[in-house]
């Protein structure tokens, strides 16, 4: 939420000045990205964010290699063992290795974060582009629908969706994704409105370029930066919302090792087996911290108005 507000207040993103041909646009963008990457490395907090995020992705990708045990197979006689060399993070009430569950859980977290952001961004960006580009009644209609969505309490909406289609990661992704549309759409619509007035867009329109092409080639690149920044915030938000819903039993079905769900069962044993709640909680916090720091770094770099 926060990010979307911040960005929508500042409206337009970076300006990629295009001199003549499209090829030069691409080249400029390419070098701009390279400069951005260099700046990212120079900021210590942003680098920390990048490291944490990369670690999260690596953990998810390499889960089968990293995790010493199967995350689902239960071994009743090993239940609630404290952390030891054999079980780095101890075991849970079914004797499952918490470390392995947390590692495999990162796959669910990454899928939840990435896919819900994708659902939110694709839908929201499309709506925003269409509304901003065509204006008129199309804009009016889309804006009204978005207003209705914004006025709708989002978390209740997510609960209702889970009640309708049952618990599951995919349903959670859809629920959180749709709820994200208005944020993107508002952001993009604003950027499009300002981009439309730019010379190069007017030029492209004047030489009769088709609408879709103008939108994709000339306008979309303009909104990439704020969309990326918003996405970082939403990624973290999705992880927190997902764990919150799992906490009240509306998240990912058993026996999947979703972090919030591991915590929810662990809280029953907090006085005897702190490790079941502490480690997944720590992982949630670190993962969200990572994307937040990364988002901050990207904002500093991509939003020139905040640069020194």
């Amino acid at each position, binding site marked *: 939420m926060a990010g979307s507000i911040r960005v929508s207040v500042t409206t337009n993103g970076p300006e990629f000045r295009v001199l003549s041909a499209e090829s030069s646009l691409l080249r400029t963008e390419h070098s701009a990205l390279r400069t951005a990457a260099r700046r990212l490395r120079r900021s210590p907090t942003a680098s920390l964010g990048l490291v944490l995020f990369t670690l999260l992705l690596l953990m998810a990708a390499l889960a089968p290699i990293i995790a010493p045990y199967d995350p689902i197979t239960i071994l009743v006689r090993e239940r609630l063992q404290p952390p030891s060399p054999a079980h780095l993070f101890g075991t849970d009430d079914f004797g499952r290795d918490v470390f392995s569950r947390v590692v495999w859980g990162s796959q669910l977290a990454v899928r939840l974060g990435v896919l819900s952001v994708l659902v939110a961004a694709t839908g929201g960006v499309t709506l925003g582009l269409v509304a901003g580009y065509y204006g008129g009644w199309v804009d009016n209609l889309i804006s009204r*629908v978005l207003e209705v969505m914004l006025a709708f309490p989002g978390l209740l909406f997510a609960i209702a969706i889970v009640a309708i289609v049952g618990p599951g990661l995919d349903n959670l992704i859809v629920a959180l994704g749709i709820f994200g549309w208005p944020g993107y759409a508002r952001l993009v619509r604003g950027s499009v409105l300002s981009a439309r007035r730019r010379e190069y867009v007017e030029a492209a329109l004047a030489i009769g370029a088709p609408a879709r092409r103008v939108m994709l080639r000339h306008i979309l690149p303009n909104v990439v930066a704020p969309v990326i920044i918003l996405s970082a915030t939403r990624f973290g938000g999705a992880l927190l919302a997902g764990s919150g819903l799992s906490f009240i039993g509306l998240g990912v079905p058993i026996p999947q090792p979703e972090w919030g769900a591991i915590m929810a069962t662990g809280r029953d044993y*907090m006085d005897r087996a702190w490790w079941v709640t502490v480690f997944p909680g720590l992982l949630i916090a670190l993962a969200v911290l990572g994307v937040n720091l990364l988002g901050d770094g990207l904002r500093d770099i991509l939003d020139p108005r905040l640069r020194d």
Partner: protein
Amino acid sequence: MTRYIIRRLILAIPVLFGVSLGVFLMLQLVPGDPALVVAGDSASPETIARIRHELGLDQPLPIQYLTFLEHLLHGSLGKSIRSNREVMTEILERFPYTLALALAAVVLSTVFGVAMGIFAAINRGRAADFVTMGIAIIGLSVPTFWIALLLIMLFALTLRWLPVTGASSWQALLMPAVALSLHSAAVKARITRSSMLEVMGQEYIRTARAKGLRERGVILRHALKNALIPISTLIGLQFGSLLGGAFIIETIFGWPGVGRLAVQAIFNRDFPIIQGTVLLIAVAYLLSNLVVDIVYGWLDPRIRYN
């Protein structure tokens, strides 16, 4: 100004209409109709059918929706399926608590968030800035329910300063309000800092400084006033979502708020209550946005209403 407000209020009507229709259609998709849930685990098919008839659920959908609208025209949101009381009564009974919690959270988060933001901005680049913003970003990254559980363990069980339950004293309000405010305090701290930095770099602040105004005066009078613009937007948006989105905190602390009512109503399939709470939250959202826009104009005279 009055004309602007009236226009905005009129524009809100189609939005609310859309919300109510959206809720109504969504509820039709939810498996398990109210009769089934009310009748319980051991009811016979005949009894379920009878309850369905009593509740008017055997009517065609458009008729059901029109009945709802008709009630609405008479100023009623219908009766709760569970308690048989007016939905309005049920909501109004809980609304003061929700309002108290939301206000407390907004005040706490604004005071602490803005203070942290100013502190970080004037110490820009120094250790104090780094630590303050570090705390803020950690606050953003930790799940709220987790904080709530930790607060209970610390303040209610270990230190025994605050009660675990209840809702009739300011002490009881403290923990849920703090838990609820942490996240938005972090957001506000970050935004205050960046808006302040933005403003402090601008001509008129430099001018003010150059005129020899003392640092504190410069910050409070000029920079902060401008930095408050995004903060006020944020308060408006958060206020709307705090009203309906606080239910996890409300559940943990047993706070008798609207959010918990709404979630319980979803599980109970108490459709009139769901309609009512969602509409209330939508109204609150639209109103707080309107207030924000008015405050906006007051803070930033460049904005004109037309």
